[in-house]
């Protein structure tokens, strides 16, 4: 074990954990004032529920052993339940830092992934249903997909698709689930009729700043060491975010006449999403291309919800699903041997495409079923009156802002 690598992974874990509050504010600023606490809560609760499940069984099912199906590893086993046998060594993963740090680092990814979904169902989903949903979703969707890609499962081991820090596991996974869940949930009252504006863009901008900051742990930590690969992932992350943000506001300027603050930070997040699978496989110029593509394509993808008439309230599909797919595919073309040992090729692109299809299909399908069942069992949508008067008061008996007392 090496103290420097350990230090960096500890720090990366803290950074990624901090992204969930960042995401909460990124989303929270975009909803109406009457729903801001409900939005924050839907994110923060993932830090509670997912942690408990991860320690009890999630980590084990993802990273301990393999259960095979037709020769392919599809899930881990229960040997590590409760993390009882983790100890203080690095025997389990053989990484240059302790196993408990690796479990912690991975936990932070397991937390933010379901939290990402919450943007799609903003301002109308019941809190209890949400809490139950993410518990089930973590175990039935996140854990298997993470196992397939990073835990020795068939996407990583057999298809040999690349996913540096979570294009498949985090962004496509969350984006596909968001789409399925919002289809079951239906649009907000007043969708496309009323003006539904962000109540506090400064909160959104703050959240984006925290996300950007935390993403260095997300991608930089995914090198699993404090070395030049981490440095490269760090740098490509910055370049992609910067380029995507800039591209987005330039596109906005052309199309709407004005660059917007929300556009800049949305572009930044799109760039961060798209570089996630690729961060360790491309160099700074490759990252710039990915960022450019992310800024333009995700900006364009905002129209999908108009074209297909679904209420993806905070654009999880346009940013995370589209951005995640984009990055996963572009990496198949832009990967350079010198950075991560892989070169872009048609064959790699094919493997990437296959993995994208699998992750999307699995996440969309299973999430749809979970949502339908939950809706039948407990109802997942808040009452219309509660939605109108606002979820903060209706679901949490709290007022977000009381300015004149």
């Amino acid at each position, binding site marked *: 074990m090496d103290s420097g690598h350990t230090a960096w992974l500890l720090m990366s874990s803290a950074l990624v954990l901090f992204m969930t509050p960042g995401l909460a504010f990124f989303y929270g600023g975009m909803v109406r004032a009457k729903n801001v606490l409900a939005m924050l809560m839907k994110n923060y609760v993932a830090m509670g529920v997912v942690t408990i499940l991860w320690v009890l069984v999630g980590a084990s099912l993802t990273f301990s052993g393999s259960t095979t199906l037709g020769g392919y590893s599809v899930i881990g086993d229960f040997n590590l339940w409760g993390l009882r046998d983790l100890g203080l060594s690095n025997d389990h993963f053989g990484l240059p830092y302790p196993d408990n740090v690796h479990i912690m680092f991975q936990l932070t990814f397991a937390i933010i992934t379901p939290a990402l979904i919450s943007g799609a169902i903003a301002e109308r989903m019941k809190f209890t249903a949400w809490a139950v949903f993410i518990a089930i979703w973590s175990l039935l969707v996140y854990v298997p997909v993470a196992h397939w890609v990073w835990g020795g499962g068939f996407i990583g081991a057999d298809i040999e698709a690349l996913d540096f820090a979570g294009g498949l596991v985090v962004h496509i996974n969350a984006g596909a689930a968001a789409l399925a869940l919002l289809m079951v949930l239906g649009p907000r009252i007043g969708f496309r009729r*009323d*003006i539904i504006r962000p109540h506090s863009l400064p909160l959104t901008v703050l959240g984006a700043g925290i996300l950007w900051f935390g993403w260095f742990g997300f991608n930089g930590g995914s090198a699993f060491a404090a070395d030049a690969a981490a440095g490269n992932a760090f740098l490509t992350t910055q370049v992609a975010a910067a380029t995507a943000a800039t591209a987005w506001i330039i596109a906005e300027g052309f199309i709407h006449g004005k660059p917007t603050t929300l556009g800049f930070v949305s572009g930044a997040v799109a760039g961060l999403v798209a570089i996630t699978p690729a961060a360790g496989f491309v160099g700074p110029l490759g990252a710039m291309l990915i960022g450019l593509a992310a800024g333009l394509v995700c900006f364009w993808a905002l129209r999908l919800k108009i074209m297909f008439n679904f209420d993806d309230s905070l654009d999880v599909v346009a940013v995370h699903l589209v951005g995640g797919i984009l990055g996963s595919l572009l990496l198949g073309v832009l990967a350079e041997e010198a950075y991560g040992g892989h070169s872009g090729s048609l064959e790699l692109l094919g493997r990437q495409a296959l993995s994208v299809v699998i992750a999307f299909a699995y996440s969309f399908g299973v999430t749809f079923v979970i949502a339908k069942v939950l809706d039948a069992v407990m109802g997942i949508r808040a009452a219309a009156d509660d939605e*109108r008067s606002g979820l903060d*008061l209706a679901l949490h*008996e*709290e*007022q977000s802002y009381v300015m004149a007392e």
Partner: protein
Amino acid sequence: MKLIIAYINPFRLDEIRDALKEAGVSGLTAINAQGFGRQSGHTETYRGAEYEVDMVPKVRIEVLVDDTLAPTVIDTIESTARTGSIGDGKIAVLPVEDVIRIRTGERGNDAL
């Protein structure tokens, strides 16, 4: 001329404004308010302390109209704002002695 004041539910504002526009009203002013009335309030809970808050958020709109348009305005607000549940709000009609358009100095009905 009359000043017509209405206390309405915030989420009806857009519809009411559009209806009034159609009814021929050339302007109105809206203000955020807290209303107390028959409509029951709500409970808020902070760290175990439960508070009964009996003021609910309302929007107070006011419209200056000439006498002939007044009944139409009242009817329009009434029909657009009515849901039939407690808290739909009230309309009050006050007499106005004069109205001045600042930009032009016009007075009375011309100023509307």
